[in-house]
């Protein structure tokens, strides 16, 4: 075996090592062979001193703690590179297959992600189209119902604004022959009355409960105050008697002092009990709580309360009228605006309803 063959074999056997290490080892062996040749030996003789390549390779790899049978080009049990398919060619083939598989995998992953993105985009477009179609048909089919609803709202506002109690709106509805309008209005007013009655009943119940609790609370404290006051009066009488006896020389000073203390304590307790009563809040300069004064003053307070009630009713009526007027104006503006919008669309507008309301609306504008 010549030097080049030996070097090639050695290089292939040690290909598992790093490139720098491999170069270092090969250069050493090459230098050694060259020196041997220079000393007079032939290449074959110099190489023969190394022994067999497998054993040499095994010892070199052992220095790197690498298995001698690892990697391409190593012994496979049959010999060196005998073409049985277990050499480095097979390893190269595996690498190529692996690289190709990785490439295909990356391409497939990219394709799938692109498909996914397109599918999401299409789904969004489809969703928007369905939503647009739905909105269009809802607007188109709901137009007659909205007109009817606006007309009804307008009539109701006009009726609320009118304070003379005339039944022109109802008569106009009847003239046109629209029975549903009057029926609906009647049902609405009945419902409102029912709700008002329920509200009044509930408020009355609350007031009754509060009155009852207050009655018993104040009654208890007044009774206690009365008892203590009466007892205090008795002690006061006894105090007087004992004072007379003391002046006359009897030894009743201690008892007299005790009676004095008891009298003061009992009257104080009675006063405290009276302050614990539940008092009604004062409503006005003339209004006085029923519980703070006797029945002689009830008539005066009732008259004052009645005057206050009238004032409050009038101010409430005025505020309600103002609110109704403002609401009616706002609704009119909204109706005009919607009518104008619809007149801008392609759908032919419905024939205008000629009624007293149009004329009356002008009257109140």
């Amino acid at each position, binding site marked *: 075996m010549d030097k080049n063959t030996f070097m090639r074999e050695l290089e292939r056997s040690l290909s598992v090592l790093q490139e720098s290490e491999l170069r*270092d080892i090969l250069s*050493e062996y090459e*230098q*050694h062979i060259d020196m041997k040749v220079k000393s007079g030996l032939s290449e074959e003789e110099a190489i023969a001193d190394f022994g067999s390549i497998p*054993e040499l390779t095994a*010892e*070199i790899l052992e*220095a790197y703690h690498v298995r001698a049978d690892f990697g391409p080009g190593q012994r496979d049990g049959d010999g060196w590179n005998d073409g049985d398919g277990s050499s480095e060619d097979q390893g190269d083939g595996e690498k190529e297959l692996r690289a190709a598989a990785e490439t295909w995998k990356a391409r497939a992953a990219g394709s799938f992600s692109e498909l996914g993105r397109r599918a999401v985009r299409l789904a969004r477009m489809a969703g928007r189209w369905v939503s647009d179609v739905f909105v269009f048909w809802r607007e188109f089919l709901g137009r007659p119902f909205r007109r009817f609803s606006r007309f009804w709202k307008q009539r109701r506002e006009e009726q609320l604004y009118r304070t003379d109690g005339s039944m022109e709106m109802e008569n106009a509805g009847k003239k046109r022959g629209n029975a549903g309008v009057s029926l609906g209005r009647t049902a609405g007013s009945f419902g409102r009355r029912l709700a008002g009655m329920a509200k009044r009943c509930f408020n009355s119940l609350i007031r009754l409960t509060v009155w009852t609790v207050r009655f018993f609370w104040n009654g208890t404290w007044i009774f206690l105050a009365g008892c203590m006051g009466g007892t205090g009066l008795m002690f006061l009488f006894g105090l007087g008697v004992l004072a007379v006896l003391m002046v006359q020389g009897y030894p009743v000073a201690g008892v007299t002092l005790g009676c004095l203390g008891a009298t003061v304590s009992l009257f104080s307790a009675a006063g405290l009990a009276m302050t614990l009563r539940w008092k009604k809040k004062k409503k006005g300069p003339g209004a006085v709580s029923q519980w703070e004064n006797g029945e002689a003053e009830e008539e005066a307070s009732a008259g004052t309360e009645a005057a206050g009630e009238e004032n409050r009713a009038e101010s409430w009526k005025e505020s309600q009228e103002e609110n109704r007027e403002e609401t009616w104006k706002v609704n009119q503006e909204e109706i005009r605006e919607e009518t104008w919008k619809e007149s801008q669309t392609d759908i032919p507008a419905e024939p205008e309803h000629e009624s007293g309301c149009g004329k009356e609306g002008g009257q109140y504008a």
Partner: protein
Amino acid sequence: MNAQLKKGVLELVVLESVRQRDMYGYELVEEVSKVVDVNEGTIYPLLKRLTNERYFETYLRESTEGPPRKYYHLTAAGVLYRDTLEKEWNELTEKVGAFLEGCKNG
């Protein structure tokens, strides 16, 4: 000489040779071959192993006779390792010698 015995002392001989002076591969092979007749292919792997274990360090020196040569130098760890091997060798030879002497004398 028995191959296993030669293999056992080879490391000590190599370490001792490099301890005396720095040597390059071919020179070291020549020096060791004077003491122990071993396969030359065995020495280079040994040098590589001792270098990987940090007992040797290498450097290149220019040569007038050819390409630069890689010289081996014994490190401090290598010196300690060499002393350990020498001590073990002395103990082994002493015990084996005494044993053989005792067997010979009966």
